Each structure stands twice: as structure tokens, then as C-alpha cells.
């Protein structure tokens, strides 16, 4: 059974088709990159799989996670809250609660598992707190547990968010541009944490990325979106510069980390002549 199965998914914002009849199968244990330029539908797709947005009403379209339908016929199913427990979501803006401690933020990952009243009152057991600490230790920020989440750097916040998804025990992890607002070193650590969860725990990961270089490095399979349709689905290695240019044309600059800027060119002769004339 597929970990994520998307069938005939469409989404229209006003008149614009953000997603156009998308079908996708992701097997358990895969790590798949979702690439595409801004506005190609990456985030929209991920928000649909997590059941945070409703798809267009269409009798055919549905999304199932481990065989359980989270969306069907343009409505979020009644089981959505149940299914969400098994889906961890990592957001571009981390979506931590800034005024709560890092530990408390990680513990909220357990809300879908512990009894509702106990969770609502925030009464977590010692064992649960240790589980959260272990998750924080795994992403390398255990020492920040008592700090307010808002005091952490972007990279640390994103790792705390990964820890939250870890304690959730999710079998499927959706990451919506997790590194888009991070510096390169933090981005690398975050991608490594995701990759670690995938390799060691066998968690299925679907990660949307802006830059194809990260996809090639961490994800064996890449799905490329263009104008709300699947433009490419296959091994990441095959996505070299030429293949990308065929897919995206001039928009390719947005998807590849620009090369180091070239050495500064001396002033053009005409400009230099002007300069000496005015001096």
C-alpha cells in the first residue's frame, strides 16, 4: 500500500488553477523531493496532503495516506484529525509557539496520542518528557529545551519542529520548504535530520525544495511541478542542468543555487574613457 496516494487532485484559487489533475504515488520509506519555481504548486500540494486545505469538489479526486482517505470529493474527511496524527508536517516558518518553551513545543507533538483531557491540560508524564528530550537530543538542540522557542535561531527552530514531528511518531513526514528561510549551514543540518529520520526510522518523507541541488543530494526521487502539473517524476540524478532547462526554460535560475559571482569585471573601456574625461 502506498504511503501517500494522490489521485486526480485539482485546486483552483479564483480562476487560477494551482493544481491540475495531479496523481502521485509514494511508497513507504521513500524520500521524495518536490521541486518547482515559486507558484508551481509545491506548498499547495503539501497542504492538501496534510489536510490543511480543501481540494476542489471533484468526484474523482482524493488523497489517501496509508490507505486512509484524508480528502475526498473536495472535503476533508471526518477522520482527518485521526490521520493527521500519523502525518508530521514541517513548515517553512517553523510554526512553533514562540512564547512556549522548546520542550513544551516538542511535547505538543504528543497531543494526538495522549488522552484529550490530559493533553489539553498539558499534563505530560515524565516518560513523555524524556521522549521529547531524546528527540531534541537527536536533532542536536537538547540544551535549548528550557528556552522560549522564539529565542532560537531559525535553524534551531526548524530542528525543534522536526523533533515535534518525531515525538508524534508519524510514519509520513511532509516538509513544506523547510530550508527556504535558512542559511546554508542550517539548511544542511535540517536536511540531514530529515534524511536521518528517513534512513534510520524508515519514515516516508516528502519535502518541497526550491533548489534542485538539495534534491539531488538528499532525495533519490524527485517530482517536479510546473504550473500545477507533474512535469517530471523520476530519479533525482537524471535531473541535470539540461533536463531542467528543458523543463523550466529561463525560470531555471530560480531552481539552481547560483554559481559564485564572477570576479568583478574591470570597468568597460567606454566607461573608463568617460571617467577620465570628467576627471
Amino acid at each position, binding site marked *: 500500500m502506498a504511503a501517500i496516494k494522490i489521485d486526480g487532485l485539482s485546486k483552483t484559487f479564483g480562476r487560477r488553477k494551482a493544481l491540475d489533475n495531479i496523481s502521485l504515488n509514494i511508497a513507504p520509506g521513500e524520500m521524495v523531493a518536490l521541486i518547482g519555481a515559486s507558484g508551481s504548486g509545491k506548498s499547495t500540494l503539501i497542504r492538501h496532503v496534510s489536510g*490543511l486545505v480543501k481540494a476542489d469538489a471533484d468526484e474523482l479526486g482524493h488523497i489517501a495516506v496509508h490507505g486512509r482517505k484524508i480528502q475526498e470529493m473536495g472535503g476533508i474527511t471526518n477522520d482527518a484529525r485521526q490521520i493527521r496524527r500519523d502525518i*508530521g508536517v514541517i513548515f517553512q516558518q517553523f510554526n512553533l*509557539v514562540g512564547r512556549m518553551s522548546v520542550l513544551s513545543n516538542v511535547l505538543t507533538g504528543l497531543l494526538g496520542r495522549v488522552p484529550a483531557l490530559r493533553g489539553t491540560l498539558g499534563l505530560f508524564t515524565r516518560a513523555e518528557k524524556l521522549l521529547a528530550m531524546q528527540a531534541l537530543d537527536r536533532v542536536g538542540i537538547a540544551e535549548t529545551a528550557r528556552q522560549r522557542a522564539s529565542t532560537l535561531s531559525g535553524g534551531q527552530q526548524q530542528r525543534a519542529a522536526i523533533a515535534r514531528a518525531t515525538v508524534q511518531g508519524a510514519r509520513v513526514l511532509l516538509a513544506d520548504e523547510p530550508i527556504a528561510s535558512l542559511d546554508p549551514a542550517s539548511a544542511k543540518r535540517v536536511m540531514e535530520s530529515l534524511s536521518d529520520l528517513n534512513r534510520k526510522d524508515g519514515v516516508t518523507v516528502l519535502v518541497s525544495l526550491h533548489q534542485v541541488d538539495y534534491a539531488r543530494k538528499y532525495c533519490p526521487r524527485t517530482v517536479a511541478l510546473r504550473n500545477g502539473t507533474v512535469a517530471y517524476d523520476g530519479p533525482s540524478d537524471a535531473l541535470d542542468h539540461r533536463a531542467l532547462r528543458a523543463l523550466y526554460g529561463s525560470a531555471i535560475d530560480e531552481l539552481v543555487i547560483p554559481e559564485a559571482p564572477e570576479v568583478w569585471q574591470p570597468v568597460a573601456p567606454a566607461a573608463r574613457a568617460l571617467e577620465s574625461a570628467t576627471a
Partner: protein
Amino acid sequence: MGARTSYAGRPFSFRYLWQERYPVTQATHQQVTLPPRDWGRTFYHWLIVAVVVFVFLWSWAPAEMYLFVNLYTDAGNMAEYAEGFIHPNFEEIDYYIEEMILTVEIAVWGTGLAVLSSIPLGILSSSNMAPFWIVQPVRRLMDTFRAINELVFAVLFVVAVGLGPFAGVMALFIHTTGTLAKLYSESVEAIDPHPVEGIRATGAIRLQEIVFGVIPQVLPLWISVSLYRFEANVRSATVLGLVGAGGIGQVMFESIRGFQYAQSAAILIVVIVTVTMTDILSQQLRKLAI
């Protein structure tokens, strides 16, 4: 030139107000012109001024503003009246303080109950938390609570539960709920939706989304406005006694009606000191909250 450049140390003169102080540089680019005036906007601005002036003139006679001359002609009467207050009589200070504490206690319970009920009502009147068919009725109910003055509620509750402090507590409770629920909902509507989404994604139930995603964000503001309402309620509670709802108000109006100005003065001083102390204390606490 020298005299024009500095005002410091000069004796005040009206002439100075009209004098050129710094020579203004002339525009050197001949091609600049002033943009044409937007007459529509100018008319609109003067219209607003005209409306405001009209409203004041219109209200002049109904508000008996022409009696302002009495402030001068009856100054003797007022001085006589004020004289009675010059020597406050603190003989019964223990009694006043006791009643003042009772007044604060009325405010404590009135505000406390309002805070408790405003949490759910505030969330139910936030358009980002509840559907409009819940938001609209709850908001209108809160408008009603707010529109009716504490004193009017106090009169109603005195009839319902009898003379005494409890009527005052209930009056403050209802009126403050109307205010706090509105203020609470305003801060809920201004939250960052991302953390709520983060909590939702863990499979949490709706109530947990509010407890973990919303409340931590709005708590400092909620504490701040609640303390502010407590201050206001201490002030309001001092007049609730007027209609028999207990507290120092009752003592104060009895003494004023009995022409015992020396006692009234003492009571007023007790009220002023208490209100000032509450203000300072709650101001400090509010600083801690944010």
C-alpha cells in the same frame, strides 16, 4: 543674523514669533512648479471642520452651556461649598478604610468573574475561531452588556438580589464581560495563524489548538487589559454605592446628602489614595506581563 539664529536666552517677545529666523533658500530650478491643488480633498477637509463646529454649536443651548457665566457670578457659593472640604474629618477613618476595602473586594470579584467568562466568550466572538453564525450573536450580546452602564445593572441587581455588595459584584461582572470579551477577541483576531496550524498538524483537537496555539500568543495582552479593567472597576465600584450596591459609595453619598462635607472630604481622600495605589500596582504588574 546672529540674533536671528538662536532663541535661547532671549527674553520672550511676540515680535519674535513673526520674525524670519533662517533665510529660506530659494528654488533654483526654474522648471519646478507647485502641483495643482486637489480641490476635492480641500473641500472635504473643510467640510469635516464645518461639521465638527456645527455639532458643537448645535449642542450649546441644549447642554445649557450659556450658564458658564454662573461659574463666575456664583463663585462665592462655590467657594463656600468648597470651604467645607478644606478640613477633612478623619474621625471615622477606620470605617472608611473598611468600606474602601469592601469596594476593592467588589471590584476583585466582579473583574475575576468577568475574566473567566470572557475567555470562552472572547474566543467565540473571534471571526478566525468560530463560524459567523456564532460570532455575530455572541458579539451582539457583548455589545448589549457593554452598552448598559454598571450603575443601571446595579439598580437591576439590587432589585433582583437585594441591597448590598453582591449586587455590585454582579453589575461589574456583566458590564466588564462585555468589554473584556471584545478586547480579548480583538487580540485573538490579530494572532499569527502559523503556530495554530503547527498544532493542528499534530492531530490535536480544536480545544488543544486554542490552548496551545492561541492562548500563549494572546496571554500577555489579555493580562494587560484585564488589569486595566480591574483599575477601572475599582473606580466604578466607588459609585455603585449610590444605588445601594454596597461599598464606600454608599457612605460617600450619605455624607454628601447630609451636608457633612468634612467627612465627605475624608472619604474622597481615601478613594483617591486607593485608586492611585491600584493604578500604580496594576501598571507595574502590566509591565511584567508584556
